[in-house]
């Protein structure tokens, strides 16, 4: 069993044993290219770790909850976090660890190393996993190296790596991972070379930064960039960077620091150095016989090759390589801070401004043609905001995950989502609204006369204070806050009263309906060394913002959506006369055409054929597995909500079953015994709210609203993510 191999051990047929990165290092080492000392922990060692600890089977159970193809990206995130926690909590078994330690002690005693992934199949000319698996820089001491090897193994199951495999159609069950442990050469100047510029094949590209090259690779630091003539190496052009920061080794790994002014004045490479880098790139290309994407560094004027891989171009993956998007989901701390500012200062105010502006438009006063233009304008606006939401708001959710990862690394908790207790905030707009509803319900509960009057639909002047509070609630949260309410204000009021009476019928105390208190931030911060506490506090603050904004951006987008719906409803009302039935089915495009052209005939859709099971067998779901999104177990009658309007029928103690809870629906959550949601994820809105209220919640149940019917007795096991029907 080869658990560890050294450069001289690697033979030509051992790529599956050592992975692409180690194999390339071995090839360069053989040809005399200067590479830092390294050894490889083989895929056999990884396999032994999985099998001896039972971890392989546990990963299988985690990923088999449902078909991988059916998992949403957020569910994959969650599965990945759970798997990572399994690696964190599962030590390397004694025999394997002893064998690894023997090699590591001999090669790296007293030295700093980089621990890098080297998965077979990684870095071929057909696909690139660059950046999808983890690398750790400046790791010291054998124990710490072994711990980081586990983290690199875990990164084989990172969400971005899983997503990329899913896209490439690779079998994730056959994934394996070798690890390169390489002496850290603290480069004074570092960078990359593309021996062929992907956009101009007559050129090579060199990028360079001062310090270590991690900042360049993850996009934190802007590099100086040179385009060189591919044949001669002559400089074609040089784009200088604003040199402000650099990455340097620090006691706890690496840190981003201000670049000293004397260095900032000069590009990282002079002409002679550039020539050496160009020569190294060409040599590497000769060794591998295909154009190379190589990382290098200078240390005391010696040039080292750190790694080399074939250039993968988008044309190799059919031109639809989504890797950059997956990578964009993991933002650096600095990047996330900038994103937060953008969301708080530009995006949410922008959505709110557009929502308010649209709400002031008197749609009934518009001509048909103007209404058609207004509908188009609104739909375009919504489309733009949705793009912004996908581009900026969704990646900002990574703030929670970044915090969660640091928390799990420090605490190694049994529940990998324990970190969410620390992220809770009182500032969620939805919770604010629910609190007001609870206060009003409490007032009804205390005042028997008021309760009786409301039940009999009697309005009394002396109860104007209560009615004023109801009106304030409607004014503050509007149709965006309590969807499904029709225009007539009196109807609006009585529907809220129906809900309040239901809430008032419940006992006032108990866990349900009361928001659980969050974890203690001081306890978390104390886990860090004093010099790291400021960073930890900043990260916690970012995590909390990410948690809060997941609610606020949804509510703001929901407001824009409800204004688009208002426009469409007005359009439908006008063309209703032309189409006797089914007008609700028409989309914006059809409505606009019908408004613009008097004689336009709307294409009536054929009703969908119902599938009849001719065999006469009755098929019924009994137990369905989803994701455990809120701990607890509860049994109750199901209330399936397909239409927000039906939320007002919700009875206390029922189980809320729906496609996806949005922030505008959460006012019934305090009444629910449990929640079942088709959309999967731990950090989606329904799950967050369920945890806030301590209500059992299972998400990611495919076909939840079809398989479960209103009135079914169901048991929701929020610990294991199981729903039992009947």
């Amino acid at each position, binding site marked *: 069993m080869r658990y560890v191999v050294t450069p001289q051990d690697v033979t030509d047929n051992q790529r599956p044993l050592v992975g692409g990165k180690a194999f390339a290092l071995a090839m360069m080492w053989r040809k005399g290219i200067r590479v830092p000392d390294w050894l490889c922990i083989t895929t056999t060692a990884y396999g032994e770790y999985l099998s001896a600890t039972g*971890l392989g*089977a*546990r990963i299988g159970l985690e990923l088999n909850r449902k078909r991988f193809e059916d998992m949403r990206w957020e569910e994959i995130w969650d599965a990945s976090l759970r798997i990572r926690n399994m690696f964190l909590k599962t030590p390397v078994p004694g025999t394997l660890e002893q064998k690894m330690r023997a090699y590591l002690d001999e090669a790296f005693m007293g030295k700093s190393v980089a621990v890098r992934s080297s998965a077979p199949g990684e870095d071929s000319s057909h696909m690139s996993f660059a950046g999808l698996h983890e690398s750790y820089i400046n790791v010291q001491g054998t124990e710490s190296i072994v711990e980081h090897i586990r983290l690199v193994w875990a990164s084989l199951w990172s969400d971005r790596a899983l997503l990329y495999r899913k896209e490439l159609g690779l079998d994730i069950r056959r994934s394996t991972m070798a690890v390169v442990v390489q002496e850290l050469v603290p480069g004074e100047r570092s960078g990359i070379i593309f021996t062929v510029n992907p956009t101009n094949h007559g050129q090579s590209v060199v990028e360079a930064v001062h310090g270590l090259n991690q900042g360049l690779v993850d996009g934190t630091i802007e590099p100086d960039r040179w385009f060189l003539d591919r044949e001669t190496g002559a400089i074609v052009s040089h784009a200088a960077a604003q040199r402000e920061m650099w990455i340097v080794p620090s006691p706890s790994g690496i840190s981003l620091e201000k670049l000293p002014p004397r260095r900032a004045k000069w590009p990282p490479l002079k002409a002679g150095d550039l020539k050496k880098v160009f020569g190294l790139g060409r040599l590497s290309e000769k060794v591998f016989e295909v154009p190379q994407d190589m990382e290098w560094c200078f240390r005391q004027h010696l040039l080292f090759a750190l790694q080399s891989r074939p250039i993968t171009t988008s044309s190799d993956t059919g031109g639809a390589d989504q890797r950059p998007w997956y990578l964009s989901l993991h933002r650096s701390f600095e990047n996330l801070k900038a994103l937060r500012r953008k969301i708080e200062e530009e995006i949410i105010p922008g959505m709110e401004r557009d929502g308010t502006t649209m709400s002031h438009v008197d749609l009934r006063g518009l001509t048909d043609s103007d209404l058609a233009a207004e509908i188009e304008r609104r739909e375009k606006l919504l489309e733009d905001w949705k793009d912004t939401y996908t581009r900026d708001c969704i990646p900002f959710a990574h703030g929670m995950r970044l915090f969660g990862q640091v928390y799990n690394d420090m605490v190694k908790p049994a529940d990998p989502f324990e970190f969410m207790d620390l992220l809770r905030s009182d500032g969620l707009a939805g919770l604010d609204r629910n609190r007001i509803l609870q206060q009003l319900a409490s007032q009804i509960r205390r005042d028997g006369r008021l309760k009786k009057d409301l039940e009999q639909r009697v309005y009394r002047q002396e109860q104007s204070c209560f009615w004023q509070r109801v009106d304030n609630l409607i004014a503050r949260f509007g149709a965006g806050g309590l969807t499904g309410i029709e225009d007539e204000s009196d109807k609006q009021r009585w529907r809220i009263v129906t809900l309040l009476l239901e809430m008032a019928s419940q006992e006032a105390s108990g866990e349900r309906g009361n928001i659980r208190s969050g974890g203690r931030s001081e306890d978390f911060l104390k886990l860090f060394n004093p010099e790291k506490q400021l960073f930890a506090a900043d990260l916690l603050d970012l995590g909390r913002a990410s948690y809060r904004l997941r609610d606020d951006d949804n509510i703001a987008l929901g407001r824009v959506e409800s204004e688009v719906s208002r426009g469409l409803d007005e359009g439908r009302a006008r063309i209703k006369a032309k189409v006797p039935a089914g007008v609700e089915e028409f989309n914006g495009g059809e409505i606009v055409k019908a408004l613009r052209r008097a004689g336009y005939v709307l294409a009536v859709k054929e009703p969908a054929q119902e599938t009849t099971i001719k065999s006469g067998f009755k098929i019924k779901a009994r137990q369905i597995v989803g994701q455990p999104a809120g*701990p607890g177990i509860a049994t109750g009658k199901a209330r399936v909500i397909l239409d927000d309007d039906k939320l007002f029928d919700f009875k206390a103690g029922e189980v809320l079953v729906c496609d996806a809870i949005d922030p505008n629906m959460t006012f019934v959550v305090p009444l629910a015994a449990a929640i079942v949601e088709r959309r999967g994820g731990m950090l989606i809105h329904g799950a967050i709210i369920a945890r806030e209220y301590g209500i059992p919640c299972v998400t990611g149940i495919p076909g939840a609203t079809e398989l479960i019917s209103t009135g079914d007795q169901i048991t929701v096991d929020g610990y294991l993510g199981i729903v039992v029907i009947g």
Partner: protein
Amino acid sequence: MCGPLDRIGEKGPSPDDDLKGRLKDLLASVKLAVLATRMGEQPYTNLVAFASTVDLRYLLFATTRATRKFSNLSDQPLVSLLVDNRSNDVSDFREAVAVTATGRAGELGASMCQEMRNLYLEKHPYLEEFIASPSCVFVSVEVDVYYVVKRFQNVTELHLKP
């Protein structure tokens, strides 16, 4: 029920050490058993991941509280389990061994014997999260008799109680 396993072992009869040895090997090597319970008058079967104590007296498995099997065995604790090593091949008729165990099932409560839990996890380490869940029930079946079937029709009984 939750006494130390070595003491439980001392009490058991040993009619056939060879049979017991083979039985132990089979119970250790097979991961899943068929559990039969009664749903009213109707027999009802499930696959369960099981483990056995070294003295063969107890078979252990885990399930969740909301399942039919748990509801059934709560109403009717007399159950049986089938463990076999068939390979779904014609050779099974001469080579497969099937064992039916009959006994009484019961929930191991909050003061669950840590030793039994460890024993179970040793065989099924991947079920650690499952059995740690508050909604999970750890069940032991105190076995009365093992019926061992070999070579198609050869049946031997191993009685654990006098």
